[in-house]
């Protein structure tokens, strides 16, 4: 019964990680920008939702919209005001990463000033666990999380395969120069990549706020999962990142049956190391050995 419980917890966590990792992988895969501020986008979305829903008492939908606007704006503006400027004159990996990291630190601390450094939760009846069968506690929120994740991925899949924008974005990821030849604008496409990737964190942020709570310094952990999942899934593959996110969520929870809780974060990175050593391409990507 313990295993079943941990499995269910793992699926819930994994669904959230899959969404977050997909957002990062989308941005990184399409624009080659190491958007280290993705964790900050998550934090921002979560706290904007908390502010609007719990503190200002707006309805669920308006609060969600506010969170989506905030995170989307953040991603797009960061790209336009910071990354593009850097890429104009130099754009090395280091410079972009350092700027992104700096932005993440600023956001994390601004959130801490406004909301404090502790954990906040959006209280909702749906996060209280219900004993479904003896020994198995599941919160309705867990089911919501999985459903939302599946829906989001379905929508993403549709966008990427059946819309012009989606196809153009995939092209951008595979061969940016050819995209120019086709007459499409790289910069505009990049903007959309940031927009979609950033908004993708909103469901995960909201659900996390309602279940285990969010804190200003969560961004680091989110970043780690995003990067690790992108690598394990294969750079450039959204499906891979999502699967890797699910894998990490499952691993984090299932390992509790065997090891003390301290090690559950480490398990994620053991998996990462193993992939780097034995299969750097990840699930679906091609490793570029330099």
């Amino acid at each position, binding site marked *: *019964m*313990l295993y079943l419980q*941990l499995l269910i*917890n793992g699926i819930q966590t994994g669904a959230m990680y899959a969404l977050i990792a997909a957002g990062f992988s989308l941005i990184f895969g399409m624009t080659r920008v190491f958007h280290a501020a993705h964790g900050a986008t998550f934090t921002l979305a979560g706290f904007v939702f908390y502010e609007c829903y719990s503190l200002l008492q707006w309805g669920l939908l308006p609060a969600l919209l506010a969170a989506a606007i905030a995170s989307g704006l953040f991603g797009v503006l960061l790209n336009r005001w910071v990354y593009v400027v850097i890429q104009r004159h130099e754009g090395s990996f280091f410079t972009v990463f350092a700027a992104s990291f700096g932005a993440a630190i600023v956001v994390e601390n601004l959130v801490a000033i406004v909301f404090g450094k*502790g954990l906040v*939760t959006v209280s909702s009846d749906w996060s209280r666990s219900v*004993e479904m069968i003896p020994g198995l506690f599941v919160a309705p929120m867990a089911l919501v999380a999985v459903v939302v994740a599946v829906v989001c991925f379905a929508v993403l899949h549709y966008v990427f395969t059946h819309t012009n924008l989606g196809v153009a974005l995939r092209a951008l990821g595979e061969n940016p120069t050819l995209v120019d030849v086709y007459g499409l604008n790289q910069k505009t496409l990049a903007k959309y990549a940031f927009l979609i990737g950033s908004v993708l964190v909103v469901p995960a942020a909201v659900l996390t706020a309602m279940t285990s709570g969010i804190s200003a310094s969560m961004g680091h952990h989110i970043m780690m999962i995003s990067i690790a999942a992108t690598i394990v899934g294969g750079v450039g593959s959204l499906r891979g990142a999502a699967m890797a996110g699910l894998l990490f969520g499952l691993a984090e929870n299932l390992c*509790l049956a065997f090891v*003390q809780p*301290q090690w559950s974060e480490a398990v994620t990175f053991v998996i990462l190391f193993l992939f780097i050593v034995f299969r750097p391409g990840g699930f679906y990507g091609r490793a570029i050995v330099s």
Partner: protein
Amino acid sequence: MKKLLRALAISQMLVAAPALAEDIKIGAAFPMSGANAEYGEIFSSGVNLAVDHVNADKRLNGKLEVVYEDSQALPTQGVIAANKLINVEKSPYILSAFTGVSKAIAPLGQRNQVVMINGGGVGPDLAQLGPYFWNVIPLVNLEVATMVPFLVKDKGLKRVALVYVDDPLGQSAREVLDKELKAAGGELVKSFSIPATAQQFSGVAAQIRDAKPDAVYIASYGNQQVQLAKQLRDNGVTQPLASYSAFSIPSLLKLPEAQGSYFTSQQVNLDSSDPRTQRMVSDYRAKYGKDPSMYAINYYNAVLLLADLAEALQKEGKPVTGANLLEKRKNTPTFDFVGAKVSFEDDGTVKAPVQINQIADGTTKLVKSGQ
């Protein structure tokens, strides 16, 4: 000749007077910024009140002053803060907080013969920091040993599960729980160690449910306890919770999921008729609009301890230095702390009665007095 004598007399007074009217500067290395700044505020509220009282009573020759330095609750910063207090402010008595900081600055106190005094941490490692490191509160082993017979004999809760942070405090809690439970006829059914930074406990809750204990003991601190209590309840752990003095922080007392939990603390009856207690409690209530927490009381006691020792030293004409304070403390059998009479052990820890409280209506209720 007379003029010379008069001049000599005046100059002698001028030289002697400053030594007699010496102000005493005590230092405090508290987290004034960062995640634990809240604790720094609680501690300093007790300290400031004590300083006001000592000066109002004019117990010392000269003024008592306190200088605050920011330790950020980190060992390296604590060392910088303590260095400033010892070498620049020339403080003979420094209030410390947070075990990591205390352990880092204890060698400085030892080397410079400056007293360092802790009123917050209760880990057993705080008893091993040398003669110049003192603790004004009983350490966790005393607290746990008091809670066990209460749980087993008074409440019939024999099977206890433990959730603990794997540091010396948590390890000590585990050892003492194991030993005392066996002795009292109970059992430590399972213990789960959690990382100090963990915030997610649904897995731990699942395992606790699996173990089916009668009660759950929590050895954690700060915000983590609040999360732990809430998530355990959210995930179906209905058994009563028990812990040590760290449960006395406001955010936990107000948590709906924590109501009914038991925790130990140093003996203090807020309604006692003892004059020191009454004065401290009523003035604190007047100044801050709420009851003083255990931490505020501890640091109030720490300052009063200095005042008692310094007053005695000054009466004997001795200078108030760290070495003299240590000697005076060793020669004093008991001290009147707010809440109880205590006496110091040789290792700088305090023997004090421990009481058992229960959280009810967002505040604490005394359930069993200490001996």
